[in-house]
């Protein structure tokens, strides 16, 4: 259709406002009050594009542009979301162009990357976006041909009629976009999926693999300044005085300013700013306790014994169960603080001018960042634009937009566009860590080895709630007591991939191994027994907090694939673990081999129930990545403190897992057709439990505290 190529997008926006009752107007990046660059970035290539809804426009050249609203932090939504839209649109994936949508609270809900919630939240709305547009295209074709829409079919971007008539979506786009979007369009039967469930490669691969400037760190704008911000060197310290004269006199330096407890060095290039930072003379003074790791160990001991305790769950009477017990099992587990350490350090760009602001950068919670900045600078939220860049890893760190706030504040002070870059040292010493925690588990067993009582006491340092009281074994054991204590510390903490459960799950699953041993039961059989009798507690909506049948399924699958109940070769030892988090069920078996006295972790078997797998490639990446992540941090991760100051400041002392240390990993998905749940986190929590349990079988030694490879533990070299 020729006319569509001359039909500009701007005209379309105008016309659709007149004609298209209920039709989304698409991205009004062309509207007034936006900055030039945003227009240049987003309007390019949109000539002849027809918007069907917030997620999708069809272009007259036969391609489709699918907008991905959620931040892409490596979890793969920028590929899996558009796949879902394209599936219901019935389009050729090769002709899809994916564009990262900016923050737009009118068009999109929950533009957040976190909690593995993007997929379950968006599944239906993405499918509807595609299906509705498909229906509009069919109606346009039917109208054009004067046939009944029910006789039309679609096939990979083409509408066909039994008479032999056919038209591509691109040819129909202009007419179709004018049709009022129908409500309640039926969705595909999952068995007809062609794109969902296949191995689809990351849509940004070409840009990533050729070094295109797609990350916040790479953002450049003519005339922008570069800044670094120095924070107090220790938690519990504040800025006392600043002499920035020497730094300001250094080459390339524009200004040295302080605000709150920050000292910002602003200059033209990164290296000049880095060098000038060394010349900053800042004095700091104590404003709160300067805690060391030794203090934390003492605090854990004290609070395990007493302290302000919150009872999170109380079922039955554990005191009576323990009094009547034939056997009592008890164990304590502890984990250190961790840095998120995403490969791309924190950075952000802000250009604040009067009562407007343009923000660009990596953040997992763009709306919250914008709203907090609006409040901080006292400017209306609608005067702030936020453009998302691909994010070089988050692991929860970029749920907190502190670095975006300080960038915006700095820009408003120096009245200039500025990109703030944190060094690795700034990142590792800058706080918002995975909190340190200690747990005590107790189980009461009767003569037959049944668990009659279960107690968990969790002590966290700025951990908020360090326990998960509604999860298993609540509902599977008659008498349960779960308590929590939180110590308030100047050391800042935040969610770290699979918050709390990243350590709690492995500890719990190690404890269950100990319980099984005391009960004289096979650890897998014992868990199956527990789930067969479980009556899960109900959540606020009156639904069970977990599904015992789905638990059983992943347990059986992992046991089968690992040969758990089969005879094993000499020297081969298996450890089991299973956990439910973020709506996904994961069972894992770690295989440790002991030969000639040398113990090594060889393999991890993993069974996952996340419902429908949207992108096979992305799903495997997330599961295997989570296993590697969980293993590396369980073995080596620790951030320690001396007088409030982190002792590890960079990768030369903060140890991460490397390529020569990875076990083989086999992943199996349960195929049950249930709506998909997220995978960014759930394969991490159980992993350390499976490894610890396998190590116990091979060595007779229980590793309960992380990092496992701490000095004197004898676990160095198992990877």
């Amino acid at each position, binding site marked *: 259709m020729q006319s569509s190529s001359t039909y500009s997008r701007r005209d379309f926006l105008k016309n659709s406002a007149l004609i298209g009752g209920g039709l989304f107007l698409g991205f009004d990046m062309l509207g007034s009050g936006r900055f030039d660059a945003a227009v240049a970035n987003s309007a390019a290539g949109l000539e002849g594009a027809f918007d069907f809804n917030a997620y999708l426009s069809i272009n007259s050249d036969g391609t489709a542009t699918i907008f991905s609203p959620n931040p892409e932090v*490596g979890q793969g939504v920028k590929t899996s979301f558009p796949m879902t839209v394209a599936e219901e649109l019935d389009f050729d994936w090769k002709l899809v162009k994916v564009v990262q949508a900016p923050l737009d609270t009118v068009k999109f809900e929950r533009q957040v990357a976190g909690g593995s919630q993007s997929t379950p939240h968006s599944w239906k709305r993405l499918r509807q976006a595609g299906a509705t547009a498909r229906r509009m295209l069919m109606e346009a074709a039917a109208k054009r041909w004067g046939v009944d829409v029910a006789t039309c079919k679609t096939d990979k971007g083409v509408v066909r009629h039994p008479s032999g008539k056919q038209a591509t979506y691109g040819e129909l786009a202009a007419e179709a976009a004018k049709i009022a979007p129908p409500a309640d369009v039926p969705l595909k039967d999952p068995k007809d999926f062609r794109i969902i469930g296949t191995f689809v490669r990351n849509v940004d691969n070409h840009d990533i693999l050729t070094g295109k400037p797609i990350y916040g760190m790479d953002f450049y704008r003519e005339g922008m300044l570069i800044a670094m911000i120095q924070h107090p060197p220790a938690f519990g310290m504040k800025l006392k005085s600043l002499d920035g004269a020497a730094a300001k006199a250094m080459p390339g330096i524009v200004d040295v300013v302080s605000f709150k407890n920050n000292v910002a060095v602003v200059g033209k290039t990164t290296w000049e700013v880095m060098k000038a930072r060394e010349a900053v003379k800042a004095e700091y003074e104590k404003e709160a306790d300067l805690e060391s790791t030794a203090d934390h160990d003492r605090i854990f001991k004290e609070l395990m014994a007493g302290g302000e305790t919150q009872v999170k769950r109380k079922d039955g009477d554990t005191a009576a169960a323990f009094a009547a017990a034939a056997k009592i099992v008890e164990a304590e587990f502890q984990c250190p603080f961790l840095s998120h350490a995403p490969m791309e350090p924190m950075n952000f760009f802000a250009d604040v001018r009067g009562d407007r602001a343009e923000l660009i950068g990596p953040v997992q919670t763009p709306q919250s960042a914008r709203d907090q900045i609006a409040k901080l600078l006292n400017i209306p939220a609608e005067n702030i634009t936020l453009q998302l860049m691909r994010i070089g890893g988050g692991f929860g760190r970029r749920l907190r937009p502190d670095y975006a706030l300080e960038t915006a504040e700095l820009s408003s002070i120096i009245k200039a566009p500025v990109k703030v870059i944190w060094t690795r040292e700034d990142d590792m010493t800058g706080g918002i860590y995975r909190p340190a925690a200690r747990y005590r588990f107790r189980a009461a067993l009767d003569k037959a080895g049944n668990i009659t009582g279960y107690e968990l006491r969790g002590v966290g340092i700025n951990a908020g709630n360090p326990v998960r009281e509604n999860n298993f074994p609540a509902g599977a054991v008659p008498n349960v007591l779960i308590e929590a204590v939180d110590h308030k510390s100047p050391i800042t903490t935040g969610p770290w991939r699979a918050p709390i459960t990243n350590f709690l799950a492995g500890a719990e699953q190690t404890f269950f191994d100990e319980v099984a041993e005391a009960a004289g039961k096979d650890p897998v059989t014992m868990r199956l027994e527990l789930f067969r009798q479980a009556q899960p507690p109900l959540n606020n909506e009156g639904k069970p907090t977990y599904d015992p049948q789905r638990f059983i399924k992943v347990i059986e699958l992992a046991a089968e694939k690992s040969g758990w109940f089969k005879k094993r070769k000499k020297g081969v030892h298996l450890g089991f673990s299973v956990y439910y988090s973020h709506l996904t069920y994961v069972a894992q078996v770690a295989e440790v081999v002991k030969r000639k006295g040398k113990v090594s972790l060889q393999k991890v078997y993993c069974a996952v129930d996340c419902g429908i797998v949207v992108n096979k490639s992305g799903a495997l990446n997330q599961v295997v990545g989570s296993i590697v992540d969980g293993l590396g941090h369980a073995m080596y991760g620790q951030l320690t403190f001396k007088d409030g100051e982190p002792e590890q400041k960079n990768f030369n002392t903060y140890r991460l897992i490397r390529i*020569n240390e990875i076990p083989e990993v086999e992943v199996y998905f349960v195929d049950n057709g249930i709506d998909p749940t997220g995978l960014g986190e759930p394969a991490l929590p159980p992993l350390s439990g499976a490894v610890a349990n396998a190590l116990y079988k091979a060595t007779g030694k229980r590793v309960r505290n992380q990092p496992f490879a701490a000095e004197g533990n004898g676990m160095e070299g198992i990877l």
Partner: protein
Amino acid sequence: MATYTLRVNGRTYTTDVAPDTPLLWVLRDHLRLTGTKYACGVAACGACTVHLDGAAVRSCVMPVSAVGNAAVTTIEGLSEKGDHPVQRAWDEVDVPQCGYCQAGQIMTAAALLQRNPNPGDEEIEQAMSGNLCRCGAYHRIRDAVKLAAKKG
């Protein structure tokens, strides 16, 4: 400040910077070649890996004054169209998660294959062990190196 003439990706650039400026920041800030990444600045992660006369080096600790006449290759210059065997293998295996470390991984792998077109598992692990991937994409990195070796 001093003037340096650098040969990068087959082009000649002249830049006026302090002699101790790491090659990484010359590439990123002055030449606007931001494919080479910063992640640690202390030669501990490999994100900043570039080739100097074909050998993999950490550009974050290499002062510009030490580059001399060597030919610098960055990820942008590894191939004209992004079709170097290592890049093609990385795409086919779909290695990237967040992707931030991958330019460094690719440059290290390309230098390895240049030296040793058929590396064994241990040689691959050894050569690649200086490159961190916080997302844990190591299995696919290993598979992609092997595939790239096949593609030659």
